[in-house]
Every structure is written in structure tokens, then in C-alpha cells.
């Protein structure tokens, strides 16, 4: 992808999230085009809350602002096997009902501390689909975060042109 189409995609994604909530919710579909995954608007909203809980906004940007949920969807849609994709879709539903049961209300309605504590329990939930789903989402969220323009230009700077090498650099 060249720079122009990358920018175009980014604007499209950003525009989509800004505009859609204000629309009439007619499509009930995810805000980005997906070739393989079948994801509803509600699924996307849940995933958005999930990535925001994993990487919350503090004095620096969090998952929601960085659109990490869309990154997760994009990667699972394009780079994973059909089996992984099924596990993801099923896992999203499993996560929704599991969190409802554990929290007594929907994930989005719960407070941030409750949600954080809940995610901490996911790996030990005993539900293999949930564990796989959570692992997948967490791995892709971390990847999206660390490889985001925001992090790579502000927090962990990526150097495209280092122009140097020192093998005895003092720690």
C-alpha cells in the first residue's frame, strides 16, 4: 500500500467511526469492510470497549482513540485462518455472555476497575474458546498499539534511518 492509499484508509476509518454513531444504525454492520468475518455494530462496540480496557487512555492515548479494535478486526480478517476466525467470532459471543454473567450487566456498562479485573480472570476462565479469543485479541491489540503511529512517534520512537551503529553503547 502506498502512502496515499494508507492515508485514505485512515481517513475512511476515522470518518467512519465519527459519522456512523450519528447515523440511523441501519446497516448494523462493522464500520470497516471485512472479507471474512461477520461482525455486527454491537460486536464492534464490545471489541472497542475490550481494547480500551486492555490499553486504556491515561495521560496518553488508549485503544479506542487509536482504533485498535479496527486493527484487531483487520488482522484477524486478513491474516488468520478460517478456524481462527470462527474461534474469534464465537469467542466474541462467549465473551459477551461470560462478562454479562460475571458482572451482572453488560461489559460496556461496568466500571473500568471491574472490567480490568474481569479481563485479568479471562485466561483462567476454564473456557477454551474464551481463552483462545482473549489471547488472540490481546496479542493483536498489543501489536496494534506498539506499531501505531502514535506510539512509534511519541512513546517508543521508531527510527527509519538510524545512520549509526555502536556495539559498545554504555547502558
Amino acid at each position, binding site marked *: *500500500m*502506498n*502512502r496515499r492509499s*494508507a492515508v485514505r*484508509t485512515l481517513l475512511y476509518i476515522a470518518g467512519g467511526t465519527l459519522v456512523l454513531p450519528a447515523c440511523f444504525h441501519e446497516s448494523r454492520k462493522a464500520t470497516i469492510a471485512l472479507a471474512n468475518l461477520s461482525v455486527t455494530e454491537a460486536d464492534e462496540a464490545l471489541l472497542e470497549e475490550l481494547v480500551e*480496557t*486492555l*490499553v*486504556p487512555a*491515561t495521560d*496518553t492515548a*488508549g485503544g479506542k482513540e487509536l482504533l485498535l479494535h479496527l486493527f484487531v478486526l*483487520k*488482522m484477524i480478517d*486478513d*491474516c*488468520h*485462518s478460517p478456524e481462527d476466525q470462527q474461534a474469534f467470532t464465537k469467542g466474541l459471543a462467549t465473551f459477551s455472555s461470560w462478562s454479562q454473567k460475571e458482572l451482572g450487566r453488560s461489559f460496556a456498562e461496568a466500571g*473500568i476497575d471491574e472490567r*480490568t479485573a474481569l*479481563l*485479568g480472570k479471562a485466561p483462567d476462565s476454564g473456557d477454551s474458546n474464551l481463552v483462545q479469543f482473549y489471547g488472540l485479541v*490481546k496479542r493483536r491489540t*498489543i*501489536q496494534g*498499539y*506498539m*506499531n*501505531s*503511529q502514535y506510539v*512509534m512517534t511519541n*512513546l*517508543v520512537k*521508531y527510527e*527509519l*534511518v*538510524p*545512520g*549509526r*551503529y*555502536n*556495539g*559498545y*553503547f*554504555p*547502558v
Partner: protein
Amino acid sequence: MANIAVDSVKDRTFDAIVIGSGASGGWAAKEFTEKGLKTLVLERGRDVVHVKDYPTTNLYPYELEHRGEMTFQDRQLNPIANRCYAYREDSAHFFVKDEEHPYIQDKEFDWLRGYQVGGKSLLWARQTQRWSAYDFEGPARDGFAVDWPIRYNDIAPWYSYVERFVGISGNRDGVATLPDGEFLPAYPLNAAEDHFRKAVDNHYKGRHVISARCAHLSQPQPIHIQQGRVQCQNRTLCQRGCPFGGYFSSNSSTLPWAQKTGNLTLRPFSVVHSILYDKDTGKATGVKIVDTNSKEELEFYAKVIFVNASTLNTNLILLNSTSERFPNGLGNDNGLLGKYVAFHNYTARISAEYDGLLQYKTDGRNPAGGGYIPNFRNVDRQETDFLRGWAAAFGASRQEMRDTNGVGTGLKEGLLTPTLSNWRVHSHMMAETIPKESNQVWLDSDKKDAWGVPMLHISVAYDDSDWQRRQDYYDRMTEMYETAGFTNIQTMDDNRRPGNDIHEMGGVRMGHDPKTSLVNKWHQLHLCKNVYVTDGACMTSTATQNPTLTYMAFTARAVDHAVNELKKGDL
């Protein structure tokens, strides 16, 4: 009409034709055009103009749609390409897609190809080591393959000639098994690599750990600036094509140089079908190509033809160049064309940790990759049950460890406040393989590709001696690691297929005797003297060195010979 036909033939007639525009073809182009010969370079793929056609070269990781990863669909469609370490989202456009160019694997073989102007010189690992006297003497001493018709001293001046133009960084290490060259300053070893060097030096006679020698401009000289190349900027994004010309490729170096002479005609989209032979003169007259855009068949003519199509495609073209005189392929009276194909065995790695020198880390990136251990096995005498030996790459780095265990602010903090690991050291093996008649390629009698060229069968495999060499690598390296105080030593079998090393060689081997070899000491086909083979196809044995530097030196030497022969009227 007759005049038009004559003019058309004239337009399609050159002094020299070079088939292929990769590292060796680019050198043939440079040498011929500099010596004043009108030269046609035929490239089967598209044109790739230096800088202009490097679409990903300046992209940040977040500008790559999948952050460098290949899609699931691509991995399904192109399993061969996807097994190559360098096939990534930022470089995939320089690789052949499996489906577009099929071949027949009688045994599993990963044939990795770059069909574009510049070929694989855009993608190579840029490691450049000279062969030594021991390597050229190997087959004769150990009784395998056939004797090389040349020795180190024949090629040494041509190594120098090529190195000065290409730009090779390295130290003058004074190691007999890896002769020194014309070097730019080396990329120094880092603290842990240097520690290993000293430990090995102190403990072993004849074993060396040196800075890897590579085709990067650590300190460009006037000859490099004249090529439009500047100092390597340590990006280590080389497979995207380098806008600085920091590493050598045909695109950044030899082809634009040839272009400047006014003597070069570069013709992309030209698949060579075969070489044309005239039995009356006993010479090749030209080549038949298929234009991949128009599907038109065309003939081009020249006094001398260099075949630099890459090892297996060079075999393919010669096998497909049949005539009444040569029904089994050009120059193939002995039936050995396509046989004795060999490669490098890359199937072993060793990792470990080192807890010393923690006051240092690395800063920036090392384009050379780290250290290199020249072969030290069976050098002066046969000392093992297996023939020949292995070389190894060696490197060390400290990783930024990020704690991914938490959730929320804890996770964020873990990701943004890395801790530095101890030194992680790693090595991989590059072992010689012994050419065998049974490791061979041939043409299918029915199946043809989209251009009417017969499909290639490949039947190349490891043998038991390859696993003996691997065990020796594990044993010796483990002992050397222990000597250096490394811990947690792990050996790892890497079950890659032959070909994945991208060092396929042979099939048109050099030798003294037309009965047992295809090309002579000047790289001429014994039986058709105006056809030269100077890419990997001419290799009689493989040694352990990365081979590209040797192909380039062979090419410069062979062009010099061809031009002298033309002057004498002998071609």
C-alpha cells in the same frame, strides 16, 4: 519488404547478449558496455528503476497495511515464497509468486526467484566472502565432482576488481581460509560478539570469529559516489530496495553504470526460450525470446552470449536449446547438463545466553548482521568422517523485554517501560554440500509454461553426510559457546527444504574435460565457445561462502576473456 527485413535484423543484432540482469548479468552488462560493445540485456520480468520503483522503501511500520505480515490467503497461495525469511509485506513485490511460475518438484525444493530487472540482487543477504585456495582445490584433493579448472590465483585479481566497485566492508583478518580483499571499514563486532571472538582466539588454533563482510558502503569512495550511491544509513530495510544505494544491487550500481556508456539496451518482459545454434559455424547466433506482453516470438543476434539467468533457469535455457547437432541441449554431448546440482545446508541453528558485559548494549543497527566463522574443518587434512566443512553466522543482541502480562494501566506500563535482557547469542550453519549426479533438473516432455517453455523438474535432496556436518556444527559450536561462558545453549534443527538457502549451484559445471564438464576454465561451453555461463550454474563445488561475490568476479574475468577473443577473431 526485403529492406525492412534486413533493417529489422540489423536492429536486433548486437555485439553481446546477456541473459539476466541480476548480480552476475549486471556485471556482464557493465563490463561489455564499458569495453565499447553494444550489449542487449534480456530480463524476463518487469523493469525496476533504482529508487523510483521501490514503493515501500520509506514506509514506517504503521504504514504497512498488515505491519509487514503476509495475509492468510497469500500464505495459502504462495507457500514456497512464504517460507523465505525475506518474503514480507514490504518486499513481496520483488518475489515470484508460486502459481505464476510453477515447476515440478520431484523432491521437495523451494525455488525462490526474483523476476525483475535486478533479479535477486535487490533481495540478497549481501554477505560477501572470497573463496580460498582450499575451496578450489577441494574436489581434486577429496575426490568428488571434478577438479576446478581454475585456482584461487586465477580469480584473486578479479575479486579485487569487483570488490572495489561493489564496495565491501570488512577487516583484513589474515585468515587463509577466507582471503582478505579490497575492503571498506568493517562494521565492528558488538561487545558480546567481540567477547566470543577473543574466547575462540585464545582457546583454538585455526578458528576465527570475524566481522561479517558485506556489500555495504560503510565509507563510500569516489567510485561509489560516481555511481550515485552514498553511505549505508543502517536502516537494515534492504529488501525494499535502498534509496541511498547503501548496498550493492544491479539496480543501484552496474546497470545505471552500463546505461551511461550509451551501449546498453535493456529489454524487460523478455523470456528467453532458447539459444540459437548454427552447426555450420559451430557457434550460437543469438537467442529466441517471447515478449511477455505481446506474446510475440522474436530473435536477437550477437557474436557472444552470456547466460546469467540464475542457476536453474540457466540450466533450463541450455536444456531447451536443442538443435540437430545438440538434441539434448546446447553443449550437452556428455549428458551431464542439469546434473550435479548442489546448494548450501542451512538447516541448523544454535542459540544461547551470556550474562557478562551487561554494561553495554547496541545502538543503531548493524547491516553486516554481526560475525562470521569461516570454515575450519578438514582444511589442511581430512579429519572427519564427512568431506569438507561448514561456516557459521554468529550474532548477539540484547532485547527490550516488555511485560505483556497485565491488563489496563499495568499492561500499558509494561509495554512502555522495557527492561534490557542479557545478551542473546545466535548462530546458523552454512555447510558445503557434495554435488551428486542424482541431484538434477530436467525438462518435462509435455508440460509448458505460459510462454511455451517446458516446465522444469527439480530433484535435489540432502544426503547422510549433510547430517554429519550438522552434528559436527552442533558439537563444535556448543564447545565453543561453553568456552566463552555462554549458558542455556539450545540447538535447533531447521527442517528447511533444499533451495530455501537460495544458493542453488551447478548443473553446467566447470572442468578441464569436455567428457565430464560443460564449461571450460573461461566459462565457455566446451562445445559452443561463444556461449559463456558465469552465474551459479557453472559451479563445480559449493564451498561454504555466500556465492554471489564469486559469480561477479567470474563474470568480470569471463567478459575480459570474451572481448579479447573477439578482438583476436577467435569467437
